[in-house]
Each structure stands twice: as structure tokens, then as C-alpha cells.
């Protein structure tokens, strides 16, 4: 956000450096059920971001002092792999990943029916294989698909996408250059059935009008992401059905 560059992020025709219009998100690919050992999993690509998410649980909560006798707790670990960014990232948790893990855990707690599993832990592991701006949104979008894939009762999925500002244009789904050299970044996650906001952050500089415009675009795009999440889950279950049909014969 604070970077300065002579690079043109949005040209006179309103086209961005990756060829997108201001209200266009990057291509998205979502696949559910990609890991054998995990109870649920999801692989997600958005633009150059590649994210893998695994869910284990509900299972016994460790460490035990974190147990809640009234409901399950969701423990999310967001982790960037060392080769996911241009410089090698130092392995292990840093302050950024602690904050993101906390926010994603809180957002997921809003839709998972945690009261069904007292004392249990639902562990969500998000690995960023390749990062290109928007990894917390990609991670959260993948996590809710992985939770559904694990068969965990939820009241809805959570699609997430960012809006922001670059070269004085309000833009949807910032890429790396816009994130580094743009003027604002606003990650948003919603519960589509009610349009509640479960994750919202912002840094940069936006007026009220710009912010409202950006959020309008992000809400619309989040509903499109939601359709892709549902499609990925339907595909996964149609595959299981096919497989089971084959063994019956």
C-alpha cells in the first residue's frame, strides 16, 4: 500500500496490467476433496494464488485447556510456504499469520454449527503454496469448502474477495502489483444467504463513496464465488456417487 512506483496500474481505457477491467475478478478454480488423509480438503486457485486447505475433526481438542464444554472451537492455522513469495519466506508463524489465522477462525465460527460438538476441536490448515495478493480471502474461501467436504454441519459457506483502489480507480480483487503499489485494500467475507459481513479489513486511503462502490462490487463478486464453491462441492459428490455406483455392480 505504501509503495510508490511510476508503473501504470490502470490505463486510460480502464484496463489493468493483467488485462482485467476494474470490476473483474481473476479466474478462479475450486476443487473439493483433494487430500486422502484429511476429513475434508480443498484446492483453490485465484489468479496466480494457489491455496490448499485441509480440515481435521471434529476431534479431541488439544491442548485440553482450550476445550469449551458448550461447543467446538475452530483452530485455524494459516501458513505461507517458504517458496510462495519472491523472496524466501522465513518458515514458521509470524505476526501477520497469527492475525490472519485468528480472523479466519472467527469468520468460520460464525457459520459452523459448533454447538453440536462440545469439547471438540475443528482444525483448519491453510497452506499458501503460491501467493499473489488476496491469500486470506483465497484461504477462507477454500476453508469453508473444505469444512463442507468434511461433512461438518454449517449454516452456509463463506466466499471472500477483496476490493480496493489503484491509480484512483476502485478495483475488484487486487493483484500483487495493485496490492504493493495501489492505494487501498479491503478484504471482505460474507455469509451469502444473509449478506452478513464476517470478515472485513481495510488499509489505505478511501473516501466514503469509493468504499461503498468497492463493497458493492465485492458483494456481487462474493456471490459469484459462492456459486463456484457450491459447484465444486456438487462435483465432488457426483464423483463419490459415481464411484459408489461402480462398486455396487
Amino acid at each position, binding site marked *: *500500500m*505504501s509503495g510508490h512506483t511510476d508503473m501504470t496500474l490502470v490505463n486510460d481505457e480502464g484496463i489493468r496490467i493483467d488485462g482485467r477491467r476494474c470490476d473483474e475478478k481473476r479466474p478462479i478454480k475450486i476443487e473439493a476433496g483433494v487430500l486422502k488423509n484429511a476429513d475434508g480438503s480443498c484446492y483453490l486457485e485465484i489468479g496466480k494464488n494457489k491455496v490448499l486447505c485441509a480440515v481435521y475433526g471434529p476431534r479431541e481438542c488439544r491442548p485440553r485447556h482450550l476445550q469449551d464444554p458448550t461447543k467446538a472451537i475452530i483452530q485455524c492455522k494459516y501458513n505461507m510456504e517458504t517458496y510462495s513469495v519472491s523472496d524466501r519466506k522465513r518458515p514458521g508463524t509470524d*505476526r*501477520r499469520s*497469527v*492475525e490472519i*489465522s*485468528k*480472523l479466519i477462525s*472467527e469468520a468460520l*465460527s*460464525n457459520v459452523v454449527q459448533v454447538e453440536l460438538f462440545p469439547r471438540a476441536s475443528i482444525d483448519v490448515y491453510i497452506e499458501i503454496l503460491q501467493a499473489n495478493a488476496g491469500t486470506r480471502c483465497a484461504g477462507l474461501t477454500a476453508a469453508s469448502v473444505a469444512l463442507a467436504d468434511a461433512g461438518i454441519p454449517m449454516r452456509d459457506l463463506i466466499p471472500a474477495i477483496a476490493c480496493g483502489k489503484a491509480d484512483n480507480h476502485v478495483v475488484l480483487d487486487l493483484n500483487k502489483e495493485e496490492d504493493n503499489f495501489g492505494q487501498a485494500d*479491503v478484504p471482505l467475507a460474507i*455469509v451469502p444467504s*444473509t*449478506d*452478513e*459481513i*464476517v*470478515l*472485513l*479489513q*481495510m*488499509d*489505505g*486511503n*478511501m*473516501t*466514503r463513496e469509493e*468504499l461503498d462502490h468497492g*463493497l458493492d462490487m465485492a*458483494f456481487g463478486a462474493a456471490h459469484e464465488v459462492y456459486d463456484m464453491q457450491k459447484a465444486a462441492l456438487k462435483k465432488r459428490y457426483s464423483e463419490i456417487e459415481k464411484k459408489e455406483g461402480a462398486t455396487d455392480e
Partner: protein
Amino acid sequence: MSDYIMSQIKRDHLLNLLADGRRADSRRLDEPRKITFETGVIESADGSCHLRLGDTEGMAGIKIIPGTPYMDAPADGVITTGAELIPMAHPTFESGPPDENAIELARVVDRGIRESGMIDVKKLCIKEGEQIWMVYIDIYALNWDGNLFDAANYAAVCALKTAMVPNKQYGFGDDMPLPITCLPISVTEAKIGNDLIVDPNFDEEAISSARMTVTTDDNGNFRAMQKGGKGSITRGDLSLCLDRAVEIGKQIRTIIG
């Protein structure tokens, strides 16, 4: 923080009051608590502020020391923000390295200061590519009665506003004030039921489902936001938070500006 269990009778009392648009300390829903502060209280720090927001109390100290710049910004000063929720401040705070609550607090305060451009880091260059000033902002909670986010923000802003770059100590000439361009002011609200209340105290935080912090600059533009907590907020809630952040931010600027 999660160890705290509130009595049902107190919870019901607070909710009943809120149903009438009232609060236990008789504030309006959009009324922050009284702010009192004193700057320059720590002589060993390059800037400091002891601040009270109602009964929430915190100390912010600034240390400014020469360091090496990052390679991608060879002429820019560096800002680092830390926060500690020490056991002195509340029975549920534990000693040890900062937990996720302390880290989130520090990062939200940091974003407000950094993204508003409050400190002109270009003016913190000593010798390009070799030496710059590193500004360390460290915040300690001394007494927790809710809304550490705003108390920490105001304390940090007041400490920075009065901080001096210690040129003399390092043989660079006379001391100078930090290059300050604007004051980022956060306004935090808690969602309880369908109500949003400004500057929640401890009891109000304990029964809230979500938290929304909005930081504005001198022009009333938005510089940082953070939603916290397991609950959700609606687009209408957000709109109210944004309106109030601008309005109340103005009031608070007259107090600490």
C-alpha cells in the same frame, strides 16, 4: 479473555437497558468515555503517553534509534508497533510472549498509523541506503476496562505527536520532532444484539458478538478498518460505523489534537 464468565443477572440487566437505548454508565450509544492523558511522562523514552479512556488505562512509549533500511526502501524510516497485555492489567491476562489478541491489537494500531502516513518516513533518512531512523511504538495495557483498540491508538498517536528524534545523542545535530502529517483516529464499536455501541467497556465487550474498528484521517477519509469477533455485522451496521467514525473521530481530534 475467554476465561471470563458474566453472571446472567448482569447480562440481562445490560440487555434490558440497551433495549431502551441506555447503557449502565448512562452514556449514549454513540458516546465515548472521557479521555485524559499526559505526554512526556517517561524521560527515558523519546516520546510517551499515559492515557485513560474511562477506566481503561494504557501507556505508549516511543524509542527512536538508528538502523539499516530495508533494501526495497533505502531512504525510508521504519515503524514497528508492539503491544503487550500484561497480567497487571487484568486477572485474565497472562505473562509470556504476546498472544493473538495482543498481536491483533498491535497490528490494527500499526495499520492506522502506517496507512494514514501519519509519520513521513521519507524524512527519517539519515544516509540513504545505509542509515535510517527506526521508530518503535510499544503499548502496554495497565488496566483493562474494554476497548483497548482505541485507548492504544490514542496513546500511540499522542506519544508520537510529542516524540523527539534524538539527533543529539547520536551526533547528528539538534533533536527534532517526528515528522507528523496527520492524526489517525480509530473509533471502535461493539455489536450487542442488533445495537452498535461506541467505545464498549469491559462488561459491554463481554456480551458483544462482534467488534468494528474504523480509523479515519484529518480529512475524514478511511485509512484502516478491522472487524473482529465471531459475530457478523450487516452492511447497514457498517454504514453506521463509518458515519460515527468520521463524526466521533472529529470530536476526539479536538481532545487529543
